[in-house]
């Protein structure tokens, strides 16, 4: 009876695959991130993203909380231009880097609102955009709570992180995962309880961004501080 009344199956376009298919997720360890932006840089190169500072599939943010409680956030060209602290070191209470990217949500609002079905989740749980079908209405860009989508001005369609789907098929790692020098980024199969990602989520106290929106984000942060939005 409950399943008859369950609106989720209709309202949300994504669902976890039955059986033992892969169900990709991402893990980011904030305690290991050094803000070098190799991930942001390599993503732009790998995926042919415009070099201008307005279009990013992933980026790094620097959070600086001063002694008097001010929160300053910056992301100069997504982090690619390097970071400097906005105040002298002795005024800083706390500071850290937060890499951001598509959360590949299990109940993604972006796939829910696409009017033509160009924004979808692959059977493995990767949120993708069909750029040959997208009409460029921008509804998904508005619906994403994490700001990780943009409209590519060259094509007039939406572009976003694909978890380097084209690399996964060839047995390679996503560009950002490969590029991280400290191993702060990892990805893997959430269905496989022995995978590196599953162990990461198990052994750390992980959090997701904006859990109150119930997007069931599959990007798990270790060391996420409450100032991060």
């Amino acid at each position: 009876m409950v399943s008859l009344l369950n609106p989720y199956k209709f309202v949300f376009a994504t669902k976890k695959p039955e059986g033992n298919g892969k169900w990709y997720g991402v893990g980011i360890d904030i305690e290991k991130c050094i803000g070098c932006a190799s991930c942001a840089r390599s993503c732009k190169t790998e995926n042919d993203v415009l070099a201008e500072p307005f279009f990013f599939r992933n980026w790094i943010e620097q959070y600086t909380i001063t002694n008097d409680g001010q929160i300053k956030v910056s992301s100069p060209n997504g982090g690619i231009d390097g970071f400097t602290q906005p105040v002298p070191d002795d005024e800083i209470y706390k500071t850290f880097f937060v890499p951001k990217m598509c959360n590949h949500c299990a109940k993604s609002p972006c796939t829910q609102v696409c009017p033509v079905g160009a924004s979808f989740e692959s059977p493995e749980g990767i949120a993708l955009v069909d750029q040959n079908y997208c009409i460029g209405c921008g509804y998904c860009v508005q619906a994403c709570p994490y700001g990780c989508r943009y409209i590519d001005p060259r094509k007039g369609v939406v572009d976003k992180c694909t978890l380097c789907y084209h690399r996964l098929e060839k047995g390679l790692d996503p560009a950002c995962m490969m590029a991280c020098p400290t191993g702060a980024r990892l990805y893997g199969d959430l269905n496989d309880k022995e995978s590196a990602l599953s162990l990461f989520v198990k052994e750390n106290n992980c959090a997701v961004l904006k859990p109150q929106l119930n997007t069931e984000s599959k990007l798990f942060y270790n060391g996420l501080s409450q100032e991060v939005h």
Partner: protein
Amino acid sequence: MNKFESLYEALANMDGYIYPNEIVLNWDLLIVMYPYVTGLVAGAFILASLNRVFDIKALRPTYEISLLTALSFMLVATMPLITHLGQPWRFYEMLITPHLTSAMAIFGFVYLWYLMVVLLLEIWFDYRYDMVMWSKQKKGFMKYFYKALTLWISDTSKESRKTDDKLGYFVTVIGIPSAFLLHGYVGFIFGSIKANPWWSTVMMPVIFLFSAMVSGIALVMFIYMVVSYLRKQKMDMKALDTIAKYLFYILILDFTLESLDQIHRIYEADESFDILQILVRGKLFFTFFIMQIGVGTLIPLATLGFLQFKKPRERIRKIIYWAMSVCVLVGIFYMRWNVVIGGQLFSKSFYGFTSYKVDLIGGTDVWLSVLWFIVPFFILAFLLWLLPPWKKHPAEH
């Protein structure tokens, strides 16, 4: 590239921190124009239905004008959306493979339903007898044009006119919830975005609907006065007074709903409140307090309210009605602006703002928006020539 120039400028004017992708405002003036135009359609239709269904006889002189106004704007309603798309030629995909979990996907069907089943049918039933008579009177191309419009029906009997009347009434009754759906879903498109706290509220469809009714009624008042003036005909003051009365009542409802939304937001003061407060007091100060609330709501409320108690001379009333309809039209435009543009000016990180400068010279969105607002008036002029309400044959009922 030229378009990046404005983005670099926005980057320099960035206030606080925004997600890097948020510098670009994707939903620009064209998306402000779309709810404005469909709102005018829904509002004009509701005024027509006040006469037809709720039997407010004083509004009879404006019945056809309301319908034809609604039709003129309806014919243009999709154009702001299509011209805004990144891939406009793919627009048909929404009709062929609509993704049913998306509110935007029903747009194509709601639009077609309202245009064809409600507006066109109602106008057709109202004018069918007249079109048959005109096809008999005219010669040449127009004769066949009117014949085609009547779907080659030449029945002019009393029974057929009674049928027209009954069916027209039936269509209008269906039309009222359809009008609510036509504009309510636009409000739902914004109201269902949980990612954006300025948009995400249960009140959004209701607020959109009532502001649509207000703008539509004001538009019909304005057009009726302009058309009467151009035709050098005496304006039916009773009709104008009645329109103003309903404008006043619905404006009260609209103002109440909007105030309720804001009071609730201020009282609950959730995590988004701080940034939204800065937004409203800062970047939206002129468009929100002065234009939407001041010019668009308080001045018309005070003036029209005063008129309910003491009616000045006809000449002065006409000037007041003309001025107030313009005020309301402008105010509701700014309401759409505040919702659409305002919702994109602040960052979803709640840490900063971007900026939007309307590029009056080079911006294609400005020219297209102005075009899509002006074209319906030309269509209306054509329709008034094709189906003149003042040349209709007298009704038998």
